[in-house]
Structures are given as C-alpha cells and as structure tokens.
C-alpha cells in the first residue's frame, strides 16, 4: 500500500469529524442574529448566556450533579473492582454480567427501567433520581478503569501487608488505594464527563425541580436555531477537552 493514500484518507475523515465542531465554535462569536450569516466578531451570545438566569441555574445544577455522580460512582466502582479482583464469592459472574449489561444496553432501555423503578417506589424525580441513575451508568466505566490498573499489579504486596499483620481494611487503605489512585482519578473524570453529557437517561429521570443543562439545551434546539447554544456548546467543548486531557495525562504519567 502506498503511504499517502491512507494518510489522505485519515486526514479527510478527521476533517469531517471536526468541521461541525469548528463551525459551532466560530459561530459562537458571530454577531449576526439570523445564525447563518457572518456578522462580525462579538461576545453577545456569551453575554446573553450568562444573563439567562434559568440557564446559569441549570449549569450549576449540572455541575453539582456531575461532581456528585462522579464521586459516588468512583467510590462504589473502586470497591466493586477491588471485590471482583480480590474476593471469591458466589455470583461473581452474575455481578460481572450485570455491569456488562449496563454498559452495553441501549441507554434508552436503562432510562425507562430506572423511570419505572423510581415511579413505582414513589421517589420524586429530581436530584436524587438523577444521581442514582447517573451513578449507575458511570459505574461500569469506573470498574473497568480500576480493574485494568489492578490487573498489572504485584500480588505479593497485599500478601506482604497481611503477613505483617494489617487488616483487610488497613491493607486496602495503605497498599491498594495508593496503587489504584491514577485509575481512580481517571475514572472520576470519565464519570464527570459522562454525567455532564448525558441526554437520554436524564430526559426520563429528571423532574421540574432540578433542571439540568442538556435538557435545557434540548428544549432550546428542538425549535429552530438559538445562537446562545453555540456559545454554550463551545464552553462545554472546552470544558470536556480540559477534563479529557487531564485524565489522559494522569493515565500516561502513571504508566511511566
């Protein structure tokens, strides 16, 4: 195979992937009201965005939700990974299977099953239902990240700790947690991004008491074009990019 053909092809596809994002970013600085024509540079849509109270409130709600969902899923996910890695117990395969199902099943299936649960147990839809749902879909990703780290880990270390008289809890705290720290951080960042970007599950399990960003965007873009969305999209893009780079940096650094 000649060298330039694959390279040209790769470049072309990358261009196609990035053109819509570039358009969004460029148009977020567009002064024109119609949204299609270029009317000069302006920050008016960013201004409009921050003057929109409901929008700012939704932004805080989303950030708080992502923060808490990422934290809870990291804790539970890490404990799950440790249990799967270290303990022998009945139904391990079932546990693995359930995590796999959460990861593979279409989001909408997870969404309606959680909605059914919340309504039948009488949980009011809002922050708590969103948190439970987001932690659930973030969980398998944290488990995988932590498991990957644990699988390359010297088994003699925890044995040594135990021989020296450490309890399981002490050993976990002083030996295992430091080892999986990079994976915990990466998993946390992953969960944060997943939570912040989710539309499908949130559509079902959120209530009017707790409006979050993706749903606010959703209701805006269904009817026509809203230039504020360009500005908001650009901000989200920069934010996700920073988070992603941070998580990659942490993972790469820990490998050295």
């Amino acid at each position, binding site marked *: 195979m000649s060298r330039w053909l*694959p390279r040209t*092809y*790769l470049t072309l596809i*990358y261009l196609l*992937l990035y053109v*819509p*994002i570039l*358009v*969004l970013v460029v*148009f977020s600085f567009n002064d024109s009201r119609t*949204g*299609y024509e270029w009317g000069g540079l302006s920050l008016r849509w960013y201004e409009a965005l921050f003057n929109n109270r409901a929008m700012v409130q939704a932004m805080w709600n989303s950030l708080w939700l992502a923060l808490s969902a990422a934290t809870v899923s990291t804790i*539970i996910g890490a*404990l*799950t990974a440790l*249990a799967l890695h270290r303990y022998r117990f009945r*139904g391990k395969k079932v*546990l693995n299977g*359930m*995590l796999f*199902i*959460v990861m*593979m*099943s*279409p*989001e*909408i*299936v997870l969404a*309606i*099953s959680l909605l*059914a*649960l919340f*309504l*039948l147990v009488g949980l009011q839809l809002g922050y708590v239902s969103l948190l*439970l749902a987001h932690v*659930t879909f973030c*969980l398998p990703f944290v488990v995988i990240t932590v498991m990957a780290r644990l699988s390359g880990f010297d088994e003699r270390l925890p044995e040594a700790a135990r021989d020296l008289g450490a*309890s*399981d*809890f002490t050993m*976990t705290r002083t030996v295992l947690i430091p080892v999986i720290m990079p994976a915990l951080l990466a998993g946390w960042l992953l969960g944060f*991004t997943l939570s912040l*970007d989710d*539309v*499908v599950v949130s559509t*079902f399990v959120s209530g009017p008491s707790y409006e979050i960003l*993706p749903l606010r*965007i*959703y209701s805006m*873009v*269904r009817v026509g*074009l809203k230039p504020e*969305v*360009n500005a908001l*999209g650009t901000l*989200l*893009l920069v934010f*996700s990019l920073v988070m*992603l780079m941070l998580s*990659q940096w942490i993972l790469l650094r820990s490998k050295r």
Partner: protein
Amino acid sequence: MRSARQQPFRTAVLILVWGWLLFLVFTPNLLVVGASVMTRDPGTFISLPLNLDAYRQLLNPLYLEVFLHSLYMAAMTTLICLLIGYPFAWSLSKVARQHQVLLIFLLIVPFWTNSLVRTYALKLILATNGLLNSALMSLGLIEEPLQMLYTEGAVIIGLVYLLLPFMILPLYAVFDDLRDDLLRASHDLGAGRFSTFIHVIVPLTLPGVLAGVMLVLLPAMGLFFVPDILGGSRNLLVGNVIKNQFLDARNWPFGAAASIVLTLAMAFLMFAHRLSKRRIGEEGV
C-alpha cells in the same frame, strides 16, 4: 477463609455492591419485563391482568412501519460507519506508533463532547440557508438550496457522525492485533492481495466488525434526539416511540415491549460476537 477481623470490610463492600446492582439494575429490568405483559392503566401506569397485548400492538402496521423505517436507518448508519471505519481503522494501524496515541485521542475528543450540541452543529450546516447550501450555491453547483434538513438522509448523517468512533475503536483493536507474519505467510503461499484480504484479513477482523456493528446498530435505534433535531416528524426511531409511550402517551406496556425487542436484538448481536470470537480461537490464531 481469612481471619474474622477481616470479614466486616469484605461483607460491607459486597453488600454495597450487590445492593446497588440488585436495586438499580436487576429490579428495574425485571420491572420492564413485567410492565410489558401488563395492562395499561391511566392512574397507576400498569395494572393486571397479564396479557400480550403490547407485543401484539408492536405488529400493528402503523408501528411496524416506524420500526422497519428505524431499522432501515440504523442499518444504513451501520453500513456507512463500517464502510468509512474499516479502511480508517486499517490506515490508523499502519501509522507510526507514537502518532497513533494522538490520533486515537483526536478520535475520542468529539465523542466526549456533548452529543446534543454536536447534533445541533450539524443543523447549522445542513439547514436550507445553512453553510453547505450557501457553499454549494456560491460555487454555482446548485441554483436553489437543497432540502437536506428534516430528511431521512439528515438523520442518517447525524447518526453516523455521532456513532462513527464506536465503529472505529473495536476495528482498530483487531487491526492492531493483526500479525504481519500471517499476511506474509498468506503471500508466500501464493495468495494474491484480494485472496489474502478475503481469506485472512476479513475472518480475523470479523469480531471487530461485529463489535462495531453492535455498538452502532443499537444506539442508532435509540438516540431519539437526533430525529427530533434533524429529522422532522416522519423519520422516527424506535427510541422516539419508546420515549413517546413512556413520557407522553403513558402507555408503559407498549413502551416496555418495544424496549424488550431492542434488548433482544442486543442479546442476539452479543451472541453472534461471542460465536465469531470463539471460532477464531478454535482455529488457533
């Protein structure tokens, strides 16, 4: 078993993990299965008696048409992703190692950015007075703006755009594992390029193809916001029907039955994927 003082931690961890998964994964899925065989009830959402009406309703020509159209759009999406993704992953695996990391990173950046916002960005491009029409008109290629938004094509473009990385990543994984000595062996045994492709490369990359198909086909039936933004009311996905039944029409049994069909489709694809992997394993490659 280990000494007694180590047990409380272990027990606490296992209870937490099992509790979470049983309450938030197992029970909800059971509820959906249950709801699908119950009767619609305006007050409590579902009630007895048990029946298969919801499944019968799936076969109602009106809905059957929506499902088949959704399946068609999902299949087209998958096919286009495969046609773009296969050579893409192959090319990617040929690039120098140190560049691959960066290229993979560039591939996953868009897929960690808000998919809703990216779908909206496509609207800016595809609209009647959008960028693509303006560009084509100023180049003199078309006289009148084309109607691209609110068509089947727009939905497929949107789905391909959102799901392409999910096709490429598993394909890249199999191409990355493809050993050059096998290709050389095939060449030494007198196989031409085409023959090597059909008899060596295709079978060895099949698990990646199936994994990619699985990761694209199912979401392509569920991402209801894509037709909402790009497709208008005539190009609905199964996801739109499920969402409608649960949030607007309040017909839980029907929505649940539709989602079970999706789940069964997933189970079938997963089974095919396992089978293809095992076959390769048995052939000792």
